[in-house]
Every structure is written in structure tokens, then in C-alpha cells.
């Protein structure tokens, strides 16, 4: 309906292969970025920034990581939380050993540790597929979580067994630790997530992304195109884990402030998998949708009784939240097994051909 594609013709392959080839999409994206970078920091309250947006963005980044692996390369993983934990602990160790180096550097570097660990646990993918592979990643999940508990060097032998984020600054402004304001934390997270999303988008639209999808769709044919399965799969594990690792580091440093090993338990893996499935396998924007639905929906449900003036016990609300999320997962799978991204795509297509139905 809002699309005016008549007259938008491409005179070069670069323009034709652009990630947003339609002008109206580019405008829409610009508006969203403007709201995200200017509108929300200006008008958002602390709750919105610290409890809604920051976790949403971080979870979306983790979901992108998982989506690269599961959605694009077709490799099911249940170890996402473990790889996030690797990132978190790596960032913690690095920043406490080398406090003089900027924390953002370490957060990004932590991704490499996660990538290395991810690649190691991806090795079995040379021989096994599907649910069988999920068990391999499950091994990663439980093994890594066990490491976080038992290997006290990782948390600097803190009595609590938890890692606590040191205060760090960027250009003199506190971005981690108790003194960092939600706005700064939000902006830092947003910037990292936007840049990494862009990079992910570049990767999946290029040769590597196509190789992943080829392996996902028909691995035999992919081999006969000259694609070597193991390197491609390992790269998917590494890149995916890099994203998860950075998300894990951000989670501890810019969202939670401190974390116990339990923060990276199997439930987080499942939550991220929900996000990816509900959001849409093989879709970056779907990762955002999934993260929004799974993270923001419970918050909304929790706030709903207050907003309606009902007095319902906190525990009951919690149980209801569980039930509603569960029911919604089933509902969305029934309505659109390909996730919100597909709904979005269908909606967009409908708008493009409006008023026609198809």
C-alpha cells in the first residue's frame, strides 16, 4: 500500500543486489534507526531502557547468532547459552587481567573465544545431523556450564561463585558497572547490535551465506557444487558462536551487571531457540521479532494486572506468563510454522501488491 515501486529500476548489479533494494524499505529502516538512536534515548524511561530495550537487543543478538547456525546453515544447536557463557567469562577474565584496555575491545574479543569453543563443539557435525547434532551441542551446554561452576579461576575465585562487572568507561563516560546510566548502556548495546546485524546480513547475502543455505537445503548437491561440508559447517559454528559470545558478554556487562553460572543454563538456550523458531528460521529480522515476542511479551503480561487494576499474586502472574508463552508458541507454530518473519514477509508482499491479494 505504501510501496511505490513503479520507476524504481536498477541500473547496476550493485543496486540490484542491495539488501534493501526498494526505496520505501530504506526509508522505513532509516525511520526505525532514527527512533532507536534518538527517539528512545530521549523519551524512554529507565525501565524501558534497562529492562526492556537492552535485554531485547542483547537477546536478539544471541538469536541472530543461533539463527546463523540453525536457520541459515541448518544445524540445530541447544548449546547457545554455553557459548554465550564463554563470551561472558572471557570478557570478564580479559577485562580483569588487562583493565587498561577498553572494555568494548574485550567484549568483541570475547567473541573469538566463543567462536573457537563453538568450532570445537561443531566438529561432530562432520558426521552427524539433526537431532543427533543437538545432543553434541547439549554436551557443550552442560560441559561449559559445569566449567563455569567448577573452574574457579574463571570467576577469579570469588566466594559467591559469580562474576561481577567492573566499572569501565568509554571516552570518560561510564558504560559498565553500577554508575553507567541506562541510556549509555542502551546506546552502546544498540550500536554494537546494529553493526553486527549489518555484518551478519552482509555475510548471509554473500558467498558464505549461500554456502550455508546450500548445505542446509541439500547438502549432497552442495558437495557436488564443490562445497566442502566440514569447513562450511565449522565456519557457521564459529560465526554463530562469535555472535553468541558477544551477546553473552553484553548480557553480563551491560545488562545484568553480575552473573552466576546459572544465568547460562539450558533454559537460556531454549529461550533463544524459541526466539529463532518463533521469529523465523533463516531470517535476521525474525530474530528481532522473536526476541521481542519472547522477552517483551512476558513483561507486558506482568504489567497487565497492574494496568487493569487487578490484584493478582506475583506468583500467579508468573505462572500465567508461562502458560501464555507456551500457548503462544503453539499458536504461532500453528498459524505460521515459518515464524513471524514469514508473516512479516507475507504482510510486506501484500502491501507491495496492494490492493491485490497476491
Amino acid at each position, binding site marked *: *500500500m505504501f*510501496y*511505490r*515501486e*513503479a*520507476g*524504481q*529500476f*536498477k*541500473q*547496476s*548489479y550493485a*543496486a*540490484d543486489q542491495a539488501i534493501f533494494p526498494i526505496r520505501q524499505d530504506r526509508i522505513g529502516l532509516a525511520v526505525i534507526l532514527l527512533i532507536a538512536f534518538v527517539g528512545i534515548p530521549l523519551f524512554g524511561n529507565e525501565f524501558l531502557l534497562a529492562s526492556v530495550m537492552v535485554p531485547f537487543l542483547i537477546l536478539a543478538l544471541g538469536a541472530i547468532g543461533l539463527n546463523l547456525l540453525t536457520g541459515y546453515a541448518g544445524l540445530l544447536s541447544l548449546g547457545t547459552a554455553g557459548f554465550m557463557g564463554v563470551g561472558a567469562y572471557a570478557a570478564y577474565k580479559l577485562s580483569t587481567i588487562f583493565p587498561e584496555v577498553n572494555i568494548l575491545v574485550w567484549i568483541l574479543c570475547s567473541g573469538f573465544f566463543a567462536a573457537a569453543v563453538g568450532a570445537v563443539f561443531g566438529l561432530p557435525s562432520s558426521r552427524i545431523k539433526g537431532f543427533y547434532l543437538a545432543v553434541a551441542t547439549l554436551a557443550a551446554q552442560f560441559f561449559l556450564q559445569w566449567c563455569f561452576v567448577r573452574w574457579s579461576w574463571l570467576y577469579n575465585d570469588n566466594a559467591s561463585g559469580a562474576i561481577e562487572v567492573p566499572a569501565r568507561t568509554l571516552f570518560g563516560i561510564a558504560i559498565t558497572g553500577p554508575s553507567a546510566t541506562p541510556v549509555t548502556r542502551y546506546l552502546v548495546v544498540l550500536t554494537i547490535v546494529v553493526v553486527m546485524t549489518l555484518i551478519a546480513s552482509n555475510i548471509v547475502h554473500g558467498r558464505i551465506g549461500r554456502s550455508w543455505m546450500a548445505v542446509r537445503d541439500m547438502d549432497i548437491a552442495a558437495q557436488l557444487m564443490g562445497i566442502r561440508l566440514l569447513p562450511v559447517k565449522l565456519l557457521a559454528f564459529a560465526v554463530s558462536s562469535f555472535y553468541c559470545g558477544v551477546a553473552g558478554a553484553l548480557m553480563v556487562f551491560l545488562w545484568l551487571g553480575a552473573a552466576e553460572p546459572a544465568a547460562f543454563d539450558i533454559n537460556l538456550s531454549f529461550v533463544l531457540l524459541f526466539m529463532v523458531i518463533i521469529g523465523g528460521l533463516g531470517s535476521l529480522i525474525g530474530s528481532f521479532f522473536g526476541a521481542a515476542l519472547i522477552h517483551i511479551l512476558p513483561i507486558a503480561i506482568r504489567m497487565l494486572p497492574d494496568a487493569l487494576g487487578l490484584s493478582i499474586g506475583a506468583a500467579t502472574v508468573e505462572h500465567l506468563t508461562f502458560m501464555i508463552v507456551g500457548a503462544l508458541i503453539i499458536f504461532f507454530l500453528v498459524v505460521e510454522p515459518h515464524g513471524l518473519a514469514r508473516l512479516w514477509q507475507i504482510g510486506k508482499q501484500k502491501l*507491495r*501488491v*496492494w*490492493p*491485490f*491479494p*497476491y
Partner: protein
Amino acid sequence: MAQTSDLVRLDTFAKLLCEHARLRPDRAAMRHKDFGIWRTWTWREVAENVRAYAAGLQALGLTRGAKIAIIGANRPALYWSILAAQWLGAVPVPVYADAVADEMAYVLNHAEVTFAAVQDQEQVDKVLSVAEQVPLLSVVLYDEPRGLRDYDHTRLHRIESVIDNGRKLLAADAALAAAIDGERDRGGADDVSIILYTSGTTGRSKGVILSAGGSIAAARDTVGFDKLGERDEVLAYLPLAWVGDHYLNYAQALVAGFCVACPESIETAENDLQEIGPSFYFAPPRVFEALLTRVTIRMEDAGALKRRMFQYFIGVSRRWGEKILNGESVPLGGRLNYWLGNLLVYAPLKNVLGFSRIRVAYTAGEAIGPDLFSFYRSLGLNLKQLYGQTEAFLYVTAQPDGQIRADTVGPAVPNVDIRISESGEVLYRSPGQFIGYYKDTERTAEVMTEDGFIKTGDAGFFDEDGQLKIIDRAKDVGRLGSGALFAPKYIENKLKFYPNIKEAVAFGQGRDFVTCMLNIDLTAVGNWAERNNIPYASYQELAQHPRVYRMLGEHVAEANRGLASEPLMANAQIRRFLILHKELDADDGEMTRTQKVRRGFIAERYKPLIDALYDGSDAADIATEVTFEDGRKGVLAARVRIADAATQPVAAERVAA
């Protein structure tokens, strides 16, 4: 504007090209979707290419006055072939790309072509297959090399290499460059610019000779009339050999300096139209009709809510749209409602159809249904009608903005004189009018009056607003046995406005009453059948289905009601009709290449059916020879049902009158 003054006096297309290259060297002149993207050439590039091409052609032996056939789809290289030929003073002769070998051989021979520039392997094969019948043909040029690698290249050349060769020659030899430019400058207004073969409704095609000066003068008038300029853009999808394409896309572009875009292939033309979003558009009524049918069908699949919204706003547009477009006063409520409709329906719809940027759109060639016409206009599409002929170099009349009506074709365009002969035939004299038919002085004389007017062969009259109204072909307007006026085309057009009816052929000359043959529109009727669970295995079965007969019978009855309300036509109501078991097809000679019915031919071919229409029987057998798509022939036999149609009583006094 002072800069363009030069354009006004230039008298050949090659000169115009060079002038544009000087005035607006970096503006886009041509686009072609090729290999997935729109390749664009600026005026400077086109001029440079054409100049080199001309040099290359000259080296191959193309001389002033020689004829060069142009065969293929709309491709920049073929337009350049026209330009390069004209540059050298040679005469381009475009030939319909879908012409069968026989037809092609006739035209090539008649025009005495020595060169042929064709699109691809398919056309090369066709030309080579008739080469023996065309002894003068010495050089064949082609654009797309695919599949031609192993062909004997002694007289076959790739256009690209001819251009490259020309470029080399020009670079190597300054004298040659000067000579080539000299060839261009030697051209003048009286040169034969092009010979367009018309697929006449009867007999063999005639070669219409147009002069350079006349062509340009005509184009100049309409460019001014519609204020076309360098910012405009068109999609060239009409047949290259048709006067419409040569006028609208070629002549007007070279006069106004706008950009011509060529689609990637026939299958992608619709999509390419949306991508380009032209600002000037021409389509014959049948295209608009097919489009509306598709719009309607696609909307039927929409959800109930959307469908109702669509219908509501189409209603709004019918009420206010044309008034707003015509600049009449409209109440605020209407304007608001229309604005909302534009937001929700019209603008998106135009976008999907690729009409968003259209400033001026024309339709011509046949009468357009009033509903159809106003549908597009009420959406805010500035659709107008023109009336023209190959012999006039298209325009005779055209509707100026603000004076648009569905049933007329507008007043004469500037510099055209029109008069109606005593027999009711429309005669005109125009700046672009042709010099004569090539090698056919007899027929040239037939259509020219002594004072230089040209007979259109159409019957018409001026209405009270001074707009021309065309009734029918002059020779086709006849009388029934009773002496009542019988205008078959008028009746046919009334029938064809129903989306279910694709073609209609009316009979009645010298008979007691009017009958007609109908062709169903397979898309519309097929869709209807699907929705009503009517199974059918073939076109023939669907056409002969009793419920289809009933439905079309209602259309005929309604058309009769319309005829009854018009004093002149009331006696020519349709008494009986039948639905043909096959589609009328140009390959079978039943229609012209421009999709006009050949009434005489049909009357002969389907004589048993016509006899049955008049002898009261309720069915008749018919066997006809048909040509399949691949050129094979076969015999199609069928039993065709004949039905009676409801007619309106005619007041006795009228009958007496």
C-alpha cells in the same frame, strides 16, 4: 528554450539525434533490460554508436535509397539500425516479428530490401529460409549472437561488430568521418524516412512511404500538444513495425528528447513496465480491457473486507474521479473521499500496474468501452483517445486535456484539416501524411482526393462539441433488407465491452435481421466457470456450455436494450447469435496482425454457420482448417449451437420512418 530552437528546424531523425547529443549529452536516451539490469545509453552514446554503425553499414555497402528490413522485438540495436539507415539516407522497412515466413517474404520482396537487421537466431532462421525468394537481400545483421556461432558468416554480421568496425574506420580515417557526417547532412525533409507496411484488413500489405520532414512535423505537433519533454520516459513494447511504435516511441522521442526503455522479453514486459514506470503510455483498448479483467479477477481472490473496500472506493472514483481529473468543481466531501481512495486503492493499484508516473496515456485503434475508459480515468490516469492512421503518420485527432469523452476521439490535432465527405467518410490533410503506397500508385490514387485530402475509409461525424465520432468502416456501414442502418462494428463494440466476450462479428447486410458470432474470453469465462463449479476440458467445451450460452444471451439482450434506445440503431438489434468453438486467430487469417476481425473472410469461412443463423436451425456443423502454434495445420470440426436473443420492441413509427 532558446537552446531547443535548433531542434525546431532540423528535418531528419539523424540530425535530431546529433542535436540531442549536443544539447543533453548525458541524459538517458535509451534503456534496455538485459542480463537483469537496465543498461542505459546517453544521447551522446547513442549518437556515437549510430554514427559508427552508419560507417559500418556503409562499409558493408548500404547506400542511399537502399532498403533495410528491421525485424524483431524492441531492442536498442534495432532502433539504432533505423537511425543508422536514415543517417545514410537508406530506407528502413520494419517487418512484424511474428509474421510467418510467407508474409515476410512478400514484404521483403516487395520492398526490395538488400539489407536486413534482425534480433536473434529465430529471425535469422526465418529470413534465411526465405532468402531464395528475396534475391536482392545481400546482408543480414543480427543483435543477439546466441546460437548463431556456427552459421555461415559470409553475409551474416553481428550488429555489435559492425558498429565496432565502423568505429575503427572512423578513427582511422578523418576523411571518412567527414563523409559520414556529410551523408547525414545531405538528408533533408523530402527524404523517404521509412516505409511502414500496414496489415490491411483486406488483401496484401501496403507499404506506406513517410517523408522525414512530414514525420518530424507531425511528431512536433503532438509533442507540443502533450508537452512532452526530456524528462519523460516510455516503455517501448509495441510492435516495431507498427506506426504506433514508430511514432510514439521513435519519432516523439527524437523530437522531444525523452528516454525509451526496451523490455527484457515479452514475458517480463509487465514487470518491466512496473520497474520503469513510464510517464507516457499507449495501449490499444484490448490491453486496457485485459488489464481490467485481470484486476477484477485478482480482486475476486481478495478477502471480503478488502474487496468491499475496493468496490466502495471504485464507486467513489467513478463518482468524482473524472471530475477531479478534468478540473471540475467537486465538493469537499467528495475530494476527501477520493483522497482517501487514492491512498488506499488508486495509487497502490496504479503502482502495481506500473502506471504511477504516467502523465499522458493514449488509447486508439478501436472503440473503447465507456465503462472501461472511465474506470482508468477515474483512477487519476490521464487516459485519452486519439484517432489516426498509418497514412497520416498516426495522429488525425486527439483529445486535449479537459475535453475527454469515451465515445469520441477528439478534435483535429493542430495543423490537421478534417472534413466529412458527402457519403459520411472522414477525410483529412495532415503534415505527416504519407507520400504514397510503395510501388502502388493505383491504390495511392484511390485514397487521395484531388485537393490532397486522404480518405480514411471510416464513417464518422462531428458532434456538437466539435469532436469526431467514428461509427465504423465506411464500407462496412450497410443496410438491412428493410433498409434500416446496419453498422456492424458499432454493434460488435457494444458486445465486446462485456468482459466475457472477447470478439464479436455481426452480420446483417441485406438480410432481414442482425445476427452475430461471439468469442468467449477464456480468462474471464474460465474464471467464472471455476467459481461456479462448471467443469470443462477444452475451450470448445466451455464455449458450447449451455450456461455460457445463457450468460452471453443476457449480454446480448442487454446490448439490444442499448441499441433500442438509439433511434438510428434500434432496428439493428441482434435476433440470433452463436458462440464460436474456436478463437478467431490471426494465424488462420481470421484477424489482422493488429487483431482486427476480417469480416469478409469470416463470412466465407463460416458460411454454414451463417446460413444456420438465418434458417432458424438450432445448431450447425462446421469444419475449418486451423494453423497450430508451431505452424502445422489441422482440421477442427465441431457442432455449434445457435441461440435466440431477447430483443426490444421498436416503436411502430420508427419502423415506418
